[in-house]
């Protein structure tokens, strides 16, 4: 894992003191709210429905046990004992006092964390594949590139007042587990035929009110020109992105209006110029960063088990409840690892009837302990609002599961209809039209009780409380969007989205529903799927084969 050196530490420390001074000037009345707002937003402090909210960056979703414990301490010391993990691999605290905010930031800084650029029209926290460094199918660990981008984008003098917010995502496999093409810039690290490392640039994706899938702008940027290319992409956007209309200001609109070819032409021109100027960090810097991400020393396979051995040992132990307990969790929540004898284990923050993404301070501490003891001191925040132990020995899974189960963290539901992404919605968010969380709670209860979760299999359900689409509803196999219908909550249903490598945008089924209606509608569409599916088809596959009509017919008759 990356560790700050004295330079990195000095940067975040300086920022904390700067913010402390700004907050004091605000409380003394020397700054108006209009003047203070952009400053607090630059430090991740929003004003939400009930209180100030602090968004803390977890760069590329990676953190260690000590950092997770620090997050737990902050939840207890300055908040109400819990935090909310988000789709952008951040954590949000909902009840921070302005008086305490600088202290909370100082505590973060002590543990090499910060809330810098988690808001505002600047380059935001860089996200990455949550299985980075562990997945069998990756070309290389994408995180060193994400860290290089993090440093480059921190306090960037030219790109702090962009037309709109800007989100990067970095992956390094053909499979996309991070919604890469729904980011302003999605980067896939690849190797060419000559074995050289480079980057594919997808530019102009996003969700919000005008969802778009990013087109490929450059197939191969040599890796020692990565920053220069990013700088060129950003400069064209900073100069020509629309500033007359907030809703048309994201880079996706620029790329769309110019056309990908023309945008690319302008970027290439700027790129050629910047190469001559020389903005790339020295080559050795990437090597220095990469050292921090060197794979841990995995034990020899003979010291672990494979999954078959695990089953033969565990199936006989009644306390493990192989069929509906431990075994189900192993089948659903573990992911193949590149080291034999290891897997990555998903810690679900989606207990049936629970609030997607919320974790209590105690739960964070338990997860931290497990990471320290069983996963080389490493944890991940997944874009699905779950947590992950990236490197665990198969032989350790029974103890890990037992500890998680006791803490309410062992829901065996990864990628099922219970694994719902939901934004905070009207329960917390001042921009919301409708609540998202109660829907997620009721749908997961409904499917768990009827036993249909297992029958339905992989089904990605995503809920947003308004058109900003923080809950990724455009990219859900089933998406739900909260709208305001004459002062009451109403929900639009959409089908057919995906944020994986088979990326697509969901289409609205028709008129909206009230809360009970939309829950029934979700059941209806899964009925249609179960009737129509052929062997091995997931919901999304069936939808793509049979189209919208049968679903519409069943919903609206």
């Amino acid at each position, binding site marked *: 894992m990356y560790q700050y*050196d004295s*330079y*990195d530490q*000095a*940067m975040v420390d*300086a920022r904390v003191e*700067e913010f402390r001074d700004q907050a004091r000037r605000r409380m003394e009345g020397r700054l108006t709210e209009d*003047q203070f707002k*952009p*400053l607090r937003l630059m430090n991740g402090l929003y004003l939400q429905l009930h209180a100030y909210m602090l968004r803390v960056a977890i760069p590329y979703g990676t953190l260690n046990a000590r950092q997770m414990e620090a997050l737990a301490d902050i939840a207890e010391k300055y908040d109400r004992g819990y935090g909310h993990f988000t789709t952008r691999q951040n954590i949000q605290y909902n009840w921070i006092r302005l008086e305490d905010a600088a202290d909370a930031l100082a505590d973060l800084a002590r543990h090499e964390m910060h809330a810098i650029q988690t808001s505002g*029209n600047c380059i935001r926290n860089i996200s990455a594949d949550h299985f980075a460094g562990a997945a069998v199918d990756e070309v290389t660990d994408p995180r060193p590139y994400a860290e290089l981008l993090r*440093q*480059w984008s*921190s*306090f*960037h*003098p*030219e*790109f*702090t*007042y*962009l037309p709109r917010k800007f989100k990067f995502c970095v992956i390094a496999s053909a499979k996309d587990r991070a919604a890469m093409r729904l980011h302003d810039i999605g980067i896939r690290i690849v190797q060419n035929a000559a074995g050289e490392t480079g980057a594919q640039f997808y530019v102009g994706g996003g969700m919000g009110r005008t969802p778009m899938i990013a087109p490929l702008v450059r197939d191969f940027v040599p890796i020692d020109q990565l*920053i220069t290319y990013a700088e060129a992409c950003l*400069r064209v956007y*900073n*100069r020509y992105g629309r*500033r007359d209309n907030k809703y048309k200001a994201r880079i996706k609109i620029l790329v769309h209006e110019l056309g990908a070819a023309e945008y690319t032409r302008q970027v290439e021109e700027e790129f050629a*110029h910047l190469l001559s*100027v*020389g*903005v790339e*960090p*020295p080559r*050795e*810097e990437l090597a*220095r960063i990469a050292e921090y991400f060197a794979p841990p020393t995995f034990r020899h396979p003979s010291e672990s088990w494979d999954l078959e051995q695990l089953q033969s040992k565990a199936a006989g132990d009644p306390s493990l409840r192989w069929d509906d307990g431990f075994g189900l969790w192993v089948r659903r929540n573990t992911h193949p690892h590149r080291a034999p004898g290891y897997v990555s284990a998903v810690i679900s923050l989606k207990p049936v009837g629970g609030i997607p993404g919320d974790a209590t301070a105690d739960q964070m501490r338990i997860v931290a302990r497990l990471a320290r003891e069983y996963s080389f001191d490493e944890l991940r925040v997944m874009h699905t609002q779950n947590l992950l132990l990236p490197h665990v020995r198969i032989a350790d899974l029974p103890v890990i599961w037992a500890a998680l189960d006791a803490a309410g963290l062992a829901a065996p539901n990864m990628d099922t209809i219970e694994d719902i992404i939901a934004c905070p919605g009207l329960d917390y968010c001042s921009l919301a039209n409708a609540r998202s969380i109660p829907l997620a709670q009721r749908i997961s209860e409904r499917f768990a009780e009827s036993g249909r979760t297992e029958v339905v299999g992989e089904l990605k359900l995503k809920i947003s409380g308004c058109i900003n689409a923080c809950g990724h509803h455009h990219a859900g196999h089933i998406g739900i969007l909260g709208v305001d219908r004459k002062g009451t909550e109403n929900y639009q249903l959409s089908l057919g989205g995906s944020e994986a490598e088979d990326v697509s945008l969901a289409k609205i089924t028709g008129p909206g529903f009230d809360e009970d209606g939309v829950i029934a509608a979700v059941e209806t569409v899964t009925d249609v799927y179960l009737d129509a599916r052929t062997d091995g088809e997931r919901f999304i596959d069936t939808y793509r084969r049979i189209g919208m009509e049968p679903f519409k017919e069943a919903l609206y008759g």
Partner: protein
Amino acid sequence: MVESRDLGTSPDEVQFRFRDDEPVDHGTVTVDSCCDQTNATAVRIEPGDDARLLLPFLDRLALVEVNFPSFTDGRGYSAARILREAGYTGELRAVGDVLIDQLSHMLRCGFDSFAPDKRLDEGDAARAFATWDNVYQRAADTRRTIADKRHEA
């Protein structure tokens, strides 16, 4: 054709200046006018202007003003860097809605004089100019970056 004293800021409106030469004190013209006429030595860039149109004339320019009608419009930062990258060495003046918290970024993008609409507190400004002992990225200033320092022999 717009060519009036009103277009530019005068030297006494400049609150901070990091240059030793005499400031230009005559007709500042628009980018369009500057491209049409051969004798202008001072020009003012508005956010929507393409700074690259000025590149053929850099030798004769002594002052480029970049206007920030609102601090949230960051196009002027790119304009400044583009001029410096092309070798412009004359005065580069940030004018308009220039506030404390933008000063250090502007300095890094190559501005060397500042004429804010509202005069800034001198102490706050001095602190702001001195923000960042170290910097992560290469920009128009010649500062060695953190990465450069990490890897120097």
